């Protein structure tokens, strides 16, 4: 059996498959359907310093081989997370990672500082690329200055593994990646969703309450693979790849272009057990190709 364990900046994982923020709840929602201990890491839904109601309904539209969403970081805030959710998730035998978002560098830092105190949370994923919130979110992720500013603020107060999630809605994602590496990020994850829009021509209105939303699913995979390839060549820190992964073969494309781990997002909606199936499939593929370790294919392109 091939060795598919991986290590992201000190984060030890039984396999390289993580579940993407906002697509797997807090893990608990899927407990009936999949063995959570067989998932390399679970990135919980976006958490902010203060509670957020998110955007109005409708928040979702199905598109060709994908979907748009504009949830807008609905969450009960970091205090609620620490008091009510953390006690329930801290026993889950996987890497439980919090996705942190905010409206200002101080915001991000204050939230990250709270999470830093939680022993059972080994890492955070900094979301500087959410296309669905007015202030903050993607605003920071589309300029090297903004990205660097947020990462520096968080790095000061957060001493565990710091992953930064990047937006593909930029002219050069490699430049953004370099800036967050220089600012102290331990790893980058990409891609967040592509900004898109869909129209209900009968109602003559956008399908989403805030007009635009984030596109995800197999439709975006080619863009995601390209971005991971560009970023992996640009930075020294580990790269986590995501975007439309529905199978082990999809995941292997990301490893070959330089990802050390991958996240599955929208795929969880189609098959709640997809993460474990993909992990198993990666192991099988390596065995079939007489490869001893996942590391034999990482970055070979």
């Amino acid at each position: 059996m091939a060795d598919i364990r991986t290590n992201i900046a000190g984060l030890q994982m039984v396999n390289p498959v993580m579940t993407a923020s906002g697509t797997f709840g807090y893990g608990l929602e899927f407990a009936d359907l999949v063995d959570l201990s067989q998932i390399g890491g679970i990135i919980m839904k976006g958490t902010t310093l203060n509670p957020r109601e998110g955007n109005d309904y409708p928040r979702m539209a199905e598109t060709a081989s994908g979907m748009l969403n504009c949830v807008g970081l609905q969450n009960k805030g970091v205090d609620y997370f620490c008091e009510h959710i953390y006690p329930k998730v801290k026993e889950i035998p996987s890497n439980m990672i919090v996705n942190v978002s905010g409206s200002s560098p101080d915001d991000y830092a204050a939230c990250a500082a709270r999470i830093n105190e939680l022993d059972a949370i080994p890492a955070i994923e900094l979301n500087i690329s959410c296309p669905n919130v007015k202030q903050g979110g993607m605003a920071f992720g589309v300029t090297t200055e903004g990205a660097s500013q947020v990462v520096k603020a968080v790095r000061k107060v957060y001493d565990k593994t710091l992953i930064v999630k990047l937006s593909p809605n930029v002219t050069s994602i490699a430049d953004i990646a370099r800036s967050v590496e220089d600012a102290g990020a331990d790893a980058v994850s990409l891609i967040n969703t592509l900004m898109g829009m869909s129209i209900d021509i009968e109602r003559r209105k956008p399908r989403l309450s805030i007009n635009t939303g984030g596109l995800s699913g197999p439709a975006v995979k080619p863009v995601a693979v390209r971005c991971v390839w560009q970023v992996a060549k640009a930075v020294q820190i580990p790269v986590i790849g995501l975007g439309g992964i529905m199978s082990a073969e999809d995941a292997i494309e990301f490893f070959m272009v330089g990802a050390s781990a991958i996240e599955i997002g929208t795929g969880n909606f189609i098959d709640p057990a997809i993460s474990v199936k993909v992990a198993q499939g990666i192991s099988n593929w390596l065995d079939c190709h007489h490869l001893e370790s996942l590391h034999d294919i990482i970055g070979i392109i």
Partner: protein
Amino acid sequence: MGNMKQCKDLKIVAVEHPNDGYVLLKLTDTEPLPAVRAGQFVEIKVDNSPQTFLRRPISVNFVDEDCNELWLLIQIVGEGTRQLSRLQVGDMLNVLFPLGNGFMQGVAGERVLLVGGGVGIAPLLEYAKQLKQVGATPYLLLGGRSANNLLQLDLFSKYGEVYVTTEDGSMGEQGFVTNHSILETYNSQLSTLNSQLFQRISCCGPKPMMMAVARWAKQHQVRCEVSLENLMACGLGACLCCVEKTVKGNVCVCKEGPVFDINELTWQI
């Protein structure tokens, strides 16, 4: 745990076409199907449909414990449901279920009016059955655009009295469910709860119809629950796409619902 969520391939044992607009799929499994509360739903994976990426949420129409069958009554509206209507006996269908919370548990002796419109009628069949099983008395008020939107009336009548309205008058009283005479009579009475035909309402159908029923219930101070059909992706409360504004803020219809007491909602009625 009998009500644990499952995601598995169920075998199609019957495919019925009541008329062009609907298909009734009867599914079974090699092991006993999990307990399903009336009002819960399933998420179906639709194969061979390029236009269909996400699962399709479908309410549970009926559970036949004796035959270990789960029935899904599906209205054919788009490419995805059209593909489902092409399924054949023996095909497998991947189903994620049971999802959400059902209608209120029935209590022996209570009288419940079940109001359904269009394909929203489907889950009320299982509910009528479950109410009768616990010794409650269901009354069925079913509305449709015309007679061929009113399916399974023979089955409904096994569990309770059936009242029908159609917009074109092709069956029952002409008009909307809220125009039906049993509501008129209720309206005209001033007597005590016990003498009323029913003590509460459970409703499933198009939103305008449910709002009309909710408005009527509010006016007459009758407890009323409605089953919502917001667009959803995961069905598990993870994606937060199907939210409804409630007195507790935005909540997932798939997880906290699909059934809500009208007092929990923020509908302007």
